[in-house]
């Protein structure tokens, strides 16, 4: 999700190419080419400029609706209904080939789905399979203490910095409760999936959300060559 305004000019983007399975967009105003995953202009008059990232979530509709009952949802274009991705599209894509050459000793297979986090110039890939088993995951990245949470829908993933007023918190999930409820070990306050303390001493406090990109390992690695991979028990 990007701010479409660059140097005071609102740009109009079109899908216009592909670069190693990540698409290129072209802006009408200058004709520059932009790489989707990095938001960087790679060709044309604006080459080197970067779009400003706008924080967004990837959530299940059910969770989103609960948090944003007054929000609006993009309608499908009825003329294109047959072209939209099928319900099992992720499984289909999983079978597609990968053209980026894979190095030896890759820790994950190319189309392994990961939650990618980048903070303070450090990047880490959290294999989603592992997150589903372990959520919430407490970790540190680039000097920032993080918590990675999977929602009760087992699909939505959020990452927060777990610092509140200079204190670093540890969390555990209360088992078998819906909606998801987290408790911090320091104060016993209860937190919801939006990173907000809903009861206890810290009521009203909000954890700072961290952008997370659900991506294939090969694509994440291509744009974050220095990335590490989360392994349980290793911080």
């Amino acid at each position, binding site marked *: 999700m990007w701010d479409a305004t660059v140097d005071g000019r609102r740009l109009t983007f*079109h*899908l216009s190419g592909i*670069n190693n399975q990540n698409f290129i967009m072209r802006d009408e105003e200058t004709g520059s080419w932009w790489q*989707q995953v990095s938001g960087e202009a790679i060709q044309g008059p604006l080459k080197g400029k970067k779009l400003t990232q706008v924080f967004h979530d*990837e959530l299940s*509709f059910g969770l*989103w609706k609960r948090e944003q009952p007054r*929000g609006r949802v*993009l309608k499908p274009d009825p003329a294109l209904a047959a072209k939209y991705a099928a319900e099992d599209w992720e499984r289909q894509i999983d079978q597609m080939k990968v053209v980026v050459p894979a190095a030896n000793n890759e820790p994950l297979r190319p189309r392994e789905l990961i939650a990618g986090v980048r903070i303070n110039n450090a990047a880490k890939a959290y294999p989603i399979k592992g997150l589903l088993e372990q959520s919430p995951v407490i970790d540190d990245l680039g000097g920032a203490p993080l918590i990675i949470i999977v929602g009760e829908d087992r699909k*939505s993933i959020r990452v927060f910095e777990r610092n509140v007023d200079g204190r670093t918190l540890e969390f555990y999930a209360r088992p078998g409760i819906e909606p998801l409820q987290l408790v911090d070990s320091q104060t016993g306050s209860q937190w919801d999936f939006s990173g907000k303390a809903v009861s206890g001493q810290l009521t009203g406090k909000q954890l700072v959300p961290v952008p997370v990109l659900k991506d294939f390992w090969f694509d994440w690695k291509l744009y974050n060559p220095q990335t590490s991979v989360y392994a349980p028990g290793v911080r």
Partner: protein
Amino acid sequence: MNVKKTFSFRNRGINWSLFLTLVLIAAVTVFIPAWLIMPFKAQSASGVALSYFLKSMSPVVTAIALLSAIALGVRIWSLERLIGRVMLIPALLVVTVSFWFARQNHFEWMFNPLPNPGFATAGEAGFIKDSDMVMAVALNGESAAYPVRQMAYHHLVQDRVGAVDLVATY
């Protein structure tokens, strides 16, 4: 008589060489980038740079090629008999198609854009299931969601949320 015959033969040859060179230039200008940035192929930085260069030149290059090819074609027509004239037609067609293709965005044929996106309120959105994923954004008190199954097709949608112009990409 001899001189005139030689002269007319050379003239034909030059005209044909120029004409076919134009056909080749027009075709190559549009074909190379389409081939280099084809899906399911590995791309190199230099290939992407060459594609950008050719794509940005192709509207002008193919326009010049088409006009010149028509002018040369008229002259060749007057010099040629039936077979020569018939051969002009597919060659001119190649230049015309190149001229047209240079003005197309074939990625938007594959993935139609959504220039005027429509929205439903969260409660009224019957077209989406609770378990379907959305990309969600909340800015300045306004909240919008873009279903991933639609985004995986369109790849990009532009919107204005909380007075911020956005491009949602997937």
